């Protein structure tokens, strides 16, 4: 925060002129990008539909009430499948993520090349949405719960491994050093010095991802990978709006319950 000499004596300004100019240019640049983006999007939009949207929304909303509660009996199995996709997918993810995380953390990686590969696995898995993973796997394995489970697993590897390896890098190094000083081997140092320190992180990350996966697995059915999403897309395609609202209600409840469970378990761990 400089004092600037002017003819009236020193003046306090928050920033130097150069800095102000840079910030102004930044804003200008941002506005240009947003404006340009907006133009491109609006070119591809049929504004008649947008104007009509409120009426449409009202129309659909009225057709959605009341939810068709009797439909629930056909939803138990998809809900169960959804739950399994999320849970088994998380188990698969953790099984892969733990070795990847140890390979990716600077203080445990056996070699910089191994670290680079591990980091690439993490980025690739994180960048590709679970729906895309599901798309690929449905094509290869055929539609069904298996494709969904593996899709969730592959998508979660990156997320879990990233949080895990950050946890591994943040450990208290002196505890490991103390174990090293006893003459323990590298594997033993890991077992006694590192694993106990990161175990709570591992459990926390697993539960956290499970909660996210419940949400994600509700939509995999849209591409045929099992779970409640199949019913959802079927009901939308047949314009069965009371069924749609029932499914949304079920998804809402599932998500709330899983969030509650996850918060409880994490509270107990930490």
């Amino acid at each position, binding site marked *: 925060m400089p004092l600037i000499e002017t003819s009236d004596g020193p003046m306090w300004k928050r920033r130097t002129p150069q800095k102000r100019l840079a910030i102004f240019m930044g804003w200008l640049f941002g506005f240009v990008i947003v404006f340009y983006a907006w133009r*491109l999007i609006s070119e591809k939009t049929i504004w008649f539909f947008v104007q009509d949207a409120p009426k449409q929304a009202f129309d659909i909303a009225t057709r959605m009430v009341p939810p068709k509660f009797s439909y629930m009996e056909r939803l138990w199995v998809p809900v169960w499948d959804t739950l399994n996709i999320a849970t088994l997918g998380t188990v698969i993810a953790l099984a892969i993520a733990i070795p990847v995380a140890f390979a990716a953390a600077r203080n445990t990686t056996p070699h910089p090349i191994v670290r680079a590969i591990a980091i690439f696995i993490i980025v690739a898995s994180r960048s590709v949405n679970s729906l895309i993973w599901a798309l690929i796997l449905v094509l*290869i394995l055929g539609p069904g719960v298996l494709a969904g489970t593996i899709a969730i697993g592959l998508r979660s590897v990156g997320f879990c491994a990233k949080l895990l390896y950050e946890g591994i890098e943040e450990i208290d190094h002196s505890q490991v050093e103390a174990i090293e000083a006893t003459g323990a081997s590298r594997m033993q140092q890991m077992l006694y010095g590192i694993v106990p320190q990161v175990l709570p992180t591992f459990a926390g990350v697993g539960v956290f991802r499970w909660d996210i996966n419940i949400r994600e697995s509700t939509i995999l059915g849209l591409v045929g990978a099992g779970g409640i999403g199949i019913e959802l897309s079927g009901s939308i395609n047949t314009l069965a709006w009371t069924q749609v609202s029932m499914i949304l209600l079920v998804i809402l409840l599932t998500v709330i319950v899983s969030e509650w469970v996850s918060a409880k378990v994490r509270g107990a761990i930490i």
Partner: protein
Amino acid sequence: MSETLNTFPDTWKKPPLIRNPTLRWGLIVGFAIYLAIALGTMDVNWQRAWEGIPRGQRFILAFFPPDFSDSRNVVWDGILESVWMAIIATVAGIALSVPIGLGAASNLAPKWVYFFCRSIVAGSRTFPEIILAIFAVKLFGFGPFAGFVALSIGTIGFFAKLLAEDIENMSASQAEAIKATGASWFQWINYAIQPQVMPRMIGLSVYRLDINFRESAVVGIVGGGGIGATLNTAFDRYEFDTAAAILLIIIGIVMVLEYISGYLRKWVQ
């Protein structure tokens, strides 16, 4: 000394993590039973899965090398549409999030505003962006506008919630000190709240841009514009090399975004 030496026990067992044996075994057995039932009820067509293996090989081989040629010019169009969609949805979503986030902070807003804003946040958080996109497509027709709306709503759920939590956790003493000077409400927000939450919010905006880009790659599957539709078509036609190229481009862009966000966060702090 050697007499007493023998009086010490020579076995030791690590006390279990959960000391109550009923609870411990209950959890272990319960989880085992769940796994058994879950795997048992999983309906898998193994024959179909087996037949898919050559296709999987072809897919993996398509990465070496991927086909970036993009003869019909659809890939770049789709990618750019996704990028623009992500940017503008992030900007709009954050613009809407600021008032909602302020309203959803219990230490700022009156009770009724608080509940109103909290319910907006909860509502937009519950459903995945893709479900929002399905409805947006129904309302606004096919195209990027629907994706834009869906992603904006998703952004509100994410951003407003974190903003509100950040404001609730900030230091009350600084806020009080500014209030004590007789500042107006807007001045108070500007001087007491903004400096405290700003750095984290900038970091989070880039993070959200990253999420929005990844999501914008899939809203196309349900008709919401962007690269998703192209990708879906590529898979439908078994054009694995194009699909591989698209996936690599997505990964590349996400990596760049992640790098920028890391850099920006360091710069802000």
